[in-house]
């Protein structure tokens, strides 16, 4: 939390709370902090922020933290929190909303590799209508390398990442689990139209 003492400022909290509730379809005000979600969260130990705390953050209008904390990025979308919530709040949906809001606000993600992963996945699925593993890993690693070279790790980090992926790639190849043919659908134009509509939706 940004301030040592909790301060409730409705002018900050109300717009944020309203936006998150509208977009995620979740009633955050129903949370009575029983922390069943926290108890079941598989990444809670690592993130510090658990679903209950994330909801508090939003209610208190802590926008900056809410849009970019470890839980938002490390959430594995296992849906344990939502399944166990006595008030039917699906926090994973809140995380999805916050990720999208962070992207729209051009906030550099706390864990950029995760964001790059999802972008590369959806791009790969858009090119041929099906997800091609080799194409995807190429797209993903090129983006990673670009980022490392721009700020941070440099060639050393790029090499370490490549080495790691190569290790998996080689063992997959040995087990004949690498697929070299590109899968492509016939009515690809339908997929292109859906992607265009998605961009329009996000923009509008």
């Amino acid at each position, binding site marked *: 939390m940004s301030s040592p003492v909790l301060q409730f400022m409705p002018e900050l909290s109300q717009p944020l709370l309203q936006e998150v509730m509208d977009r995620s379809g979740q009633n955050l005000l129903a949370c009575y902090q029983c922390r069943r979600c926290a108890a079941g969260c598989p990444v809670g130990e690592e993130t510090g922020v658990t679903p209950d705390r994330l909801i508090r953050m939003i209610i208190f209008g802590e926008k900056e933290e809410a849009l970019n904390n470890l839980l938002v990025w490390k959430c594995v979308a296992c849906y344990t929190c939502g399944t166990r919530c006595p008030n039917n709040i699906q926090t994973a949906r809140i995380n999805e909303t916050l990720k999208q809001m962070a992207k729209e606000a051009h906030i550099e993600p706390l864990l950029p590799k995760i964001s790059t992963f999802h972008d590369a996945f959806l791009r790969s699925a858009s090119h041929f209508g099906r*997800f091609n593993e080799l194409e995807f890993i190429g797209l993903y690693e090129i983006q990673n390398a670009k980022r490392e070279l721009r700020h941070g790790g440099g060639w050393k980090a790029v090499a370490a990442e490549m080495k790691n992926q190569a290790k998996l790639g080689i063992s997959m190849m040995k087990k004949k*689990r690498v697929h070299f043919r590109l899968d492509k659908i016939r*009515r690809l134009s339908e997929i292109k139209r859906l992607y265009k509509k998605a961009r329009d939706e996000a923009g509008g």
Partner: protein
Amino acid sequence: MRLGAEIMQIAYYPGCTLHASSELYDVQCRKVLKQLGIELKEIEDWNCCGATSASKTDDFLAVALPARNLGIADASGLLEMLIPCSSCYSRTLVSQKILSEDTELKNKINTELSKKVEGRIRIASILDILVPRANSGVIAEKSVKNLGGLKPACYYGCLLTRFPRDIQISDNVENPQGMETVCKALGAEPIDWCYKTDCCGASAAINDADTSLLLMSRIMKDALAREANCFVTTCPMCQMNMDAYQDQVCESCGIQKRLPVFFITELLGIAMGFTLQEMQIDRHFVDSLGLLKELKLYAINPERY
């Protein structure tokens, strides 16, 4: 009429993984279900469902991508569609649910599709197909080998029982029993354990390895403490993750033992007398043949192997 008494056709959505790194699961599903009297009709021109990435980052695509497949499936005229991959299954089921509640969104998506979503097709997981056939005795009837001595930790993962929307399933959410029912029908002795519906972090394996290794180590430790001698799963993401990274997980926490990670269809195939080659069991990362040999599950008919 008893289930399995005659050939029935159902629609089939393999998903991208079953056409690539988990092709063995596709092969197994087709062979094993044929034995049970089910012919899988792969729907034409299907596309990627968007998986976890769409659901996490794009609300529209998360519904629209599976919707196209739903439209194609509805047009096939078949009543039911098998989706063996848990991720595809979950995304498609959720998309169908959202579309049934949001006519405006459905119309918006349908204008872009040559085959419109009608909402007719019934989505089935592999367990939805197998459990009734275990209960009716068809599976036991088609089995020629007893899997006694095999002690699988039945691993469901996240997406088979938990959904981001209000979707009811026939099994217990916290302690599902479907896979155990099938295993028992084959003579196997599934263990009782705590981590059957915990997440293995498959979607984080490439982009956040620390998290996925931590999650897998918990699953591995509990399975070993309960004296399982293998895992069995229905999800290609879980299978790949727990199989390909198991050495790394075990090395990070000093575990010597390894546990093969089988698809449920493999166990059925072994019990039905398919060869190891037919089931492609040599495509696992963790050695699976040692355990099967030890349990004499592939020495009964040696000339076939």
